[in-house]
Each structure stands twice: as C-alpha cells, then as structure tokens.
C-alpha cells in the first residue's frame, strides 16, 4: 500500500486524512499536539469570556484505520521522500502533505513579545486568548489600539470581528464613553477587499471606532506606551490588542520551497509543492493568493485527496469566511480566483449560521457534512452572488494561466 504522510492534524490535515480510501492507502497523521483546537472560537474566549470546550483529541477525530503519531516534524527531504521527527525518527512516504498552519512570531517586532506575554492575543492559542480576556475584563477605560502586526494573517475578517465584539462588550459594561478605540491596519482602508469594506467602514463609524489606515506596525515602545509604524505615525495606548506577525512553518526543507516568511510555494490549483508531484502544501501554510481560513483548508484538502487518488480536480480559490459584526449580526466574505468579493449584506440568519458552524465543526472534519456543504457552496456560488449584489464592482481581468 502506498504511504501517505500528513504533517499537521488541523482543519486541512484531518479532512484530508478522512477523505482517503483506507483500503488503498496507509495513512499517518503527525502532529506536535495531542489536541485539535477550534480556532474561530478564540474570538469568543477573548471578548466574551466563553468557557466552552473547544478542543478534542486528534486521535478521536480520525476515522478508524488512520495512524496518529504525536511528534514534531523538524525537517523534510522532498527528493528522498523522508520526513524527520524528534529523536531521529524517520518517516518515509510515497505522498506527503504539509498542513502545519501558521505560527505566530511576536519577536520580529521590537517590543511586541512583552505585549504578547502580558496582554495576550486572540490568534495564537487558547491560553493567550484567555489572557486577553483577563486584560479586557480588567480594563477600566482609556485608549485601545487594535490591529495586526503584519500584512498577512489568517482569517482576514477576524481583526475586524475582534474590534466589533470588543466594542459591544465595552458598551454593555458601560465603559464605551470612557474609551477611545483606534483600529490600525497596513491597508488603505479597514477591510482590504473593497466591496466588503463598503459594509465594514460605515459600521465602524457608527460604533465610533476610528480607523488608522497605512499603519504598518514597526515597533512597540512599551516604556512610553506607544506603537509606531513604518510610515512614521504613532499611537498612544492604555491597552494594546495586537495580532502577532503570522509566519509559515519552521520545518527545514532540504529544497528551496519556502518564501521569506516561511510559507510553502505551491501551485494555486493543485496545491503541489513547486517542482514535486508527490508533495502538497494544504491550508494556511501555503502561499496561495487566497485567504488563510478553515474553509479554504477544507476545500484544498478535498482537491488534494482526489488528486492523490487519481481523480482530476482543481481548487477554484473559493473563500467563505464567516464575519461576526457584533450585536447578533454576521455576513460572509465570498469570492474565488475568478470573482471578486461579494458585497453581502449582514443579517441575523447569517449569524445563526456562523454559530451553528461551531456546533457541526467536529462532524465536518470527518466528512459527515459533505453533502450539506456541496449544496451550500453551489447555493452561494461567487459568480451568481456577484451578479445579485455587486452593482458597482468592475469585472476582473481573467486570472487563468496562459
């Protein structure tokens, strides 16, 4: 039997493993952790103090017959088809899938690690999200600066979701009038994709959240409680809520397949690592021109499972990010390689859908919800939705390769 090695038991790795025919393939999943975490819930831990259990043992999320090994992969040799774990364990393979997600690196911004350790954040892990909830809970009013420390981060809506949920919390606590919230971003506007920004900016304005565009974080001056940007601007803070820079993988490759931030260069339709037929990078760890989200990892994993099993398939670049706008309303960011982001109006129904996802997530990983998703993805086809909602959006040039 051919050996399939999956490095990472996150959203992408688990869905991929559970989509393979186990009569044909010998499948091993390696993860450095024993538990899988439902990351979207970090928002509700950090800004609502949610205590819901959001992790499950990886071994229980895999179909019977799939091997799970707890180990950290340190090095991969793509030419000789071998991965190297701790204690000199070697994993030979016929097909490898690297699905190791992103890793936060607060050390690249001077002063940020102090904030990361003291205030917490809502992207790195559960522990840091709880720490941030403590900081938010103990806040008594003043200046909050809120934003991300690098242009790339997973789940593009999550920084705005965070600031909207924070505003809702402060409002309920009666602290809103004592607080100034500034949302800083390296982009020219609050939300990078223009059509969604047309919904987001008026909402931020309505809730009194100031936006500081073109603010690419350069350093944190913890002594004077200031953040500074590459562009030369400064903001004072009492409470800094900063998503640490998001980097790719620390795994060493014997071949040159990573970009300068550690993301793996892969084909945007097949997720094959450039130059290799039997090696793939799935989910947040690859450098595809699309959002880093669980839904993307899911769809990429399905395509790769087909390709490994000899079935023609191609990833369309489809994104579908749930976007909580606070006060019980939500929308979705929907697009693909061929169609721009839809200006999709927020509603209570969409909020209900986002909350339901948190419940059915565990079934999704095992593939039990596939028929529902197939129907949903067709129902929300980006081309059709664009025709319905995007009245002002110019068409895009074709992105098909020549």
């Amino acid at each position: 039997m051919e050996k399939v090695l999956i490095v990472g038991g996150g959203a992408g790795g688990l869905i991929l493993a559970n989509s393979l025919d186990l009569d044909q393939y010998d499948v091993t999943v390696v993860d450095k952790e024993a538990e899988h975490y439902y990351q979207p819930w970090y928002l509700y831990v950090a800004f609502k103090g949610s205590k819901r259990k959001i992790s499950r043992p990886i071994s229980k999320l895999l179909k019977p017959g799939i091997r799970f090994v707890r180990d950290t992969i340190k090095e991969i040799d793509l030419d000789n088809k071998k991965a190297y774990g701790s204690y000199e364990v070697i994993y030979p393979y016929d097909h490898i899938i690297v699905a190791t997600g992103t890793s936060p690196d607060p050390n690249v911004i001077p002063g940020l690690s102090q904030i990361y350790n003291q205030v917490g954040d809502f992207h790195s892990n559960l522990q840091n999200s709880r720490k941030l909830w403590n900081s938010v809970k103990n806040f008594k009013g003043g200046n909050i600066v809120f934003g991300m420390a690098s242009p790339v981060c997973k789940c593009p809506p999550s920084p705005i979701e965070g600031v909207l949920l924070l505003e809702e919390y402060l409002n309920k606590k009666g602290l809103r009038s004592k607080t100034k919230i500034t949302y800083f971003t390296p982009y020219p506007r609050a939300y990078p994709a223009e059509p969604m920004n047309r919904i987001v900016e008026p909402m931020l304005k309505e809730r009194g959240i100031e936006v500081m565009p073109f603010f690419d974080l350069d350093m944190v001056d913890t002594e004077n409680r200031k953040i500074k940007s590459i562009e030369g601007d400064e903001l004072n803070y009492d409470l800094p809520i900063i998503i640490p820079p998001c980097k790719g993988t620390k795994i060493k490759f014997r071949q040159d397949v990573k970009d300068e931030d550690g993301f793996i260069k892969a084909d945007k339709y097949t997720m094959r690592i450039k130059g290799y037929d039997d090696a793939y990078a799935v989910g947040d760890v690859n450098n595809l021109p699309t959002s880093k989200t669980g839904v993307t990892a899911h769809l990429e994993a399905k395509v790769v499972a087909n390709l490994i099993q000899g079935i023609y398939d191609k990833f369309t670049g489809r994104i579908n990010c749930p976007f909580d706008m606070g006060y019980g309303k939500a929308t979705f960011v929907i697009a693909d390689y061929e169609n721009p982001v839809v200006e999709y109006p927020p509603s209570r129904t969409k909020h209900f859908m986002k909350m339901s996802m948190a419940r059915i997530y565990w079934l999704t990983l095992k593939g039990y919800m596939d028929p529902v998703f197939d129907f949903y993805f067709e129902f929300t086809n980006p081309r059709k939705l664009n025709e319905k909602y995007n009245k002002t959006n110019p068409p895009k040039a074709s992105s098909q390769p020549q």
Partner: protein
Amino acid sequence: MEKLVDSRGSACPGPITDLSKAYRNSQVGDIIVLWATDQGVKADAQAWAKRTGNEILEMKEEPDKIVIKIRINKR
C-alpha cells in the same frame, strides 16, 4: 533586487496585502513587480505609493493581468 509578486486571482485579502508583505521584506533600491487581476489594485497601489513615499515606475494592463512596477525609495 527585482522581486516578482504574483497576486493574480487574489480577491481577498487582495493584492494590496501581498504588496505590503513584499514591502516589509524589501530594501531601498529594490524593485517590486506586482501582478494582479483585481482592478482595485490600481488605485490602491497609487495611494499606497503616495503614503509610503515609494515610486510607481510603470503600470500597464496586459490581457491576463495588471502589471505594476514599484521602486522602493523609503523603508
């Protein structure tokens, strides 16, 4: 150094995020060549260059992409 940033197909987060990322990893004198399909990139790149003090050397529309050449003058 000339660096190609292929952002074709990116709708969200979009080419401006790839440009910001390339900027972070660049040095004064570098040339960034950005490929994109999202039409919004033209106005964004212009606003970005103005704000960050960098220079757009060329902006052209090809059948399958928009090509923007930027010289990094400030870091």
